[in-house]
């Protein structure tokens, strides 16, 4: 099924008459990894949630190349602070499969396979809320990837993780990307952005200031704000 391009036209998210994001005009193709960067409060998380459809828009349009209900079935979201369901590791990962009507035995078998892929194979029956920060993020990734989504949104998945855990997460993401999953991810880590990005979306005050191939952006941003941000200056 062809989901892309994803086209946003004049998309706006408002809360209590304050514009959080938008108007956004954006066209995302079906390949590679898009990295969303910008200062705190720029609207990165809201932008990702809007594209994913868990934040309601107050104006504009957002269209996938396929019907919306189909598109919703083929995407997943990893939150900055992973939500651990009050279940075991394996039941957490199996849960999205159970939602689609897959039998418990098969869902658990597939979940066990994904747990092994992300390095949680040895703690399948441990309660998810007992996991460390890195393990939680791996579980969240496995739970998102178990349905083999065509597009995966990630909101700063490596925030508050150490270097080793970050590297492990990046390896999982690189593998997912090689397998054809489209990644749209926000990060504050410019090193990570350089390692993973095929294209960069620079967000400031709820608007997309730059949207360009990663090589072009990191070689020389087109806007003064982009240059300042890349230089580590305070941008507001």
């Amino acid at each position: 099924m062809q989901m892309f391009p994803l086209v946003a036209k004049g998309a706006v998210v408002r809360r209590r008459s304050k514009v959080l994001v938008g108007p956004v005009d954006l066209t995302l193709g079906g390949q590679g990894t898009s990295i969303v960067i910008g200062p705190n409060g720029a609207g990165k998380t809201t932008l990702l949630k809007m594209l994913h459809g868990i934040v309601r828009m107050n104006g504009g349009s957002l269209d996938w190349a396929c019907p919306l209900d189909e598109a919703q079935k083929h995407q997943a979201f990893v939150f900055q602070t992973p939500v651990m369901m009050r279940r075991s590791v394996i039941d957490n990962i199996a849960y999205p499969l159970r939602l689609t009507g897959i039998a418990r035995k098969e869902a658990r078998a597939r979940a066990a396979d994904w747990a092994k892929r992300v390095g949680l194979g040895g703690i399948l029956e441990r309660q998810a809320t007992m996991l460390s920060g890195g393990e939680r993020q791996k579980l969240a990734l496995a739970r998102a990837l178990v349905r083999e989504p065509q597009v995966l949104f990630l909101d700063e998945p490596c925030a508050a993780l150490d270097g080793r855990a970050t590297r492990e997460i990046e390896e999982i993401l690189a593998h997912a990307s090689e397998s054809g999953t489209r990644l749209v991810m926000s990060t504050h880590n410019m090193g990570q952005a350089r390692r993973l990005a095929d294209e960069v979306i620079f967000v400031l005050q709820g608007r997309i200031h730059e949207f360009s191939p990663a090589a072009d952006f990191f070689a020389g941003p087109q806007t003064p704000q982009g240059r300042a941000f890349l230089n580590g200056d305070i941008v507001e």
Partner: protein
Amino acid sequence: MNDLWAGLSQAFWLLATLDADLVEITLRSLRVTLTALAIACAIALPLAAFLAVRRFRLRRATIAVLNALMGLPPVVVGLVVYVFLSRAGPFGVFGLLFTPTAMIIAQVIIVVPLVASVAHQSLRELWSDYHDLLISMNATQLQRIKALLWDGRRALLTAALAGFGRAIGEVGAIMVVGGNIDHATRVLTTAIALETGKGEFAMALGLGFVLIALAIAVNLAIHWLGRTESEGRW
């Protein structure tokens, strides 16, 4: 003070000899209360989960009414049920007045708001954690409710125990609709009221201690079964 000691020794004696009347009314108390609790939980827990996940126009008002109904006067509930079940009432034809079924109906009405309100508090917090995740996973309304009920099961146990406490200690409503008939509708609480009325304080206190012991035993049993205090569980 003498009455207290006499009550304790009476309670011990009743338990030690497995007094036939005590066993009968204790079993009836448990049967009525646990049946009412099971029915109340079957109504209240899904209702609490529904109120947590679903947004509708009168939601806040519904929650406010539910909370207010926690303080429902049992005697008034008993009176209303009495009117409905009496021969001249709309359900008089079923002949349920002065039967354990009538007592169960009254207890269900008293317990549902309490269980639903306590459960709603827990599930509302759980839903605030799960909200984005379950929407992101495209879970249907029913799937969201099921997830909340399953993952919040240990918190819901507390709600059920609160309901049990209210039901087992209830006297006003079941006295009105049950009639405290010997070998038919007499339960621990109505027996205590009767013995107190007769001036048999030692016997009344004895039954009271049995009632307290029963409530504690059931609470401990449910906690143990649910393993609510085990590390890493809920």
